[in-house]
């Protein structure tokens, strides 16, 4: 599989062609609009990204689709984005409401994981409760390999309703039958009445979008990966600003 660098000359022209039709531009948050940080609570867009994103959102319809809970995501995004979708698609989808069953499922998983964390104390492992899904971060663990092995082991004991999605130094536990980012993006595109979709993300959970077999979608991964189903890639998160600038330029908007 050959993924292509988005900013090569020919591919920039392809990106430009999206501005000739009604395109919805969708972004992941952590690792895409905001750099990955040791403490997820402190993640935020740089002042430049925020300013560019605001202008892009005022020019074209935008969406942010994140693994964070909607409550956590909202204050991190400047006003203007047409859609904010949290919890990997479980919250914020137009026409969908939160489902109590999913919340109960999540509580049952916590009942397994909390005692396990007490029995295996590692201050670098953190359980994040997002209401409808969980994230077990081990970015700050001093023994990352061991932490990963131990988390993998406990996650194997979870029930069949739990879908485990490994990420960058994190494991996401989401309802197996719940919506995912791919489904979320499809619904947002349909709701917005856009004719085409653009999506950029950096993580394993974004593969649910990248693997959509839909020719009305352009997919970009932050960071090259031969295993990814995304068609194009950016080398690093800092290049997202250039992407936002290009979208503005193609629509004839000055920075």
């Amino acid at each position, binding site marked *: 599989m050959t*993924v292509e660098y988005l900013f090569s000359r*020919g591919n920039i022209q392809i990106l430009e*062609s999206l501005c000739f*039709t009604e395109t919805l531009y969708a972004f992941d948050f952590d690792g895409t609009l905001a750099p990955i940080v040791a403490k997820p609570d402190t993640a935020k867009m740089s002042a430049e990204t925020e300013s560019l994103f605001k202008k892009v959102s005022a020019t074209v319809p935008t969406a942010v689709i994140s693994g964070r809970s909607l409550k956590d995501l909202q204050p991190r995004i400047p006003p203007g984005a047409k859609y904010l979708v949290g919890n990997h698609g479980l919250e914020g989808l137009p026409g969908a409401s939160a489902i109590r069953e999913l919340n109960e499922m999540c509580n049952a998983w916590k009942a397994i994981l909390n005692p396990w964390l007490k029995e295996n104390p590692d201050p670098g492992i953190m359980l994040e409760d997002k209401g409808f899904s969980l994230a077990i971060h081990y970015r700050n663990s001093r023994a990352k390999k061991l932490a990963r092995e131990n988390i993998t082991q406990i996650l194997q004991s979870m029930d069949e309703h739990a879908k485990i999605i490994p990420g960058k130094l994190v494991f996401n536990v989401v309802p197996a039958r719940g919506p995912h980012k791919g489904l979320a993006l499809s619904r947002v595109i349909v709701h917005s009445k856009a*004719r085409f979709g653009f999506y950029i993300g950096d993580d394993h959970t974004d593969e649910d979008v990248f693997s959509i077999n839909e020719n009305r979608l352009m997919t970009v991964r932050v960071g090259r990966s031969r295993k990814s189903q995304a*068609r194009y890639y950016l080398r690093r998160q800092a290049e997202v600003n250039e992407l936002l600038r290009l979208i503005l330029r193609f629509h004839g908007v000055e920075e």
Partner: protein
Amino acid sequence: MSESTHFLSILQLGIRIQHVNQKLERDTGMSLTQWSLLKCLVDHPTISALDLADLLGIQASSLTQSIKRLQRKGLIIVAKDPLDARRKLLSVTREGNVRLLEVDRKLKAWKSSAKLSSSSVQEVFRDLKQFL
């Protein structure tokens, strides 16, 4: 409508399309086929040639020459699909979009003076379907 009237309508439609095509090529350097391909491509960036043919209800081989001509004129770009090197992805260039808007304006101006209304075209097509 009698059979002879049907054929006459089809013949008239064919002649009118020919006239529009000649006038369009003379005035804009773009044929009706090229114009309709560009129209379709604008709303389907990165579509594959095969999917485009499906969308238009024609065989992919019929598109080959038109795609080459549009590419030579710099109105579209043809790129290989990063996920499948056998597939070619088609997109309109800025120049292609500018030219398309110019042609759209001309066609709109002609529409008011042309006797061929969209309802009469639909009528002929409906009659044509009964024959085929």
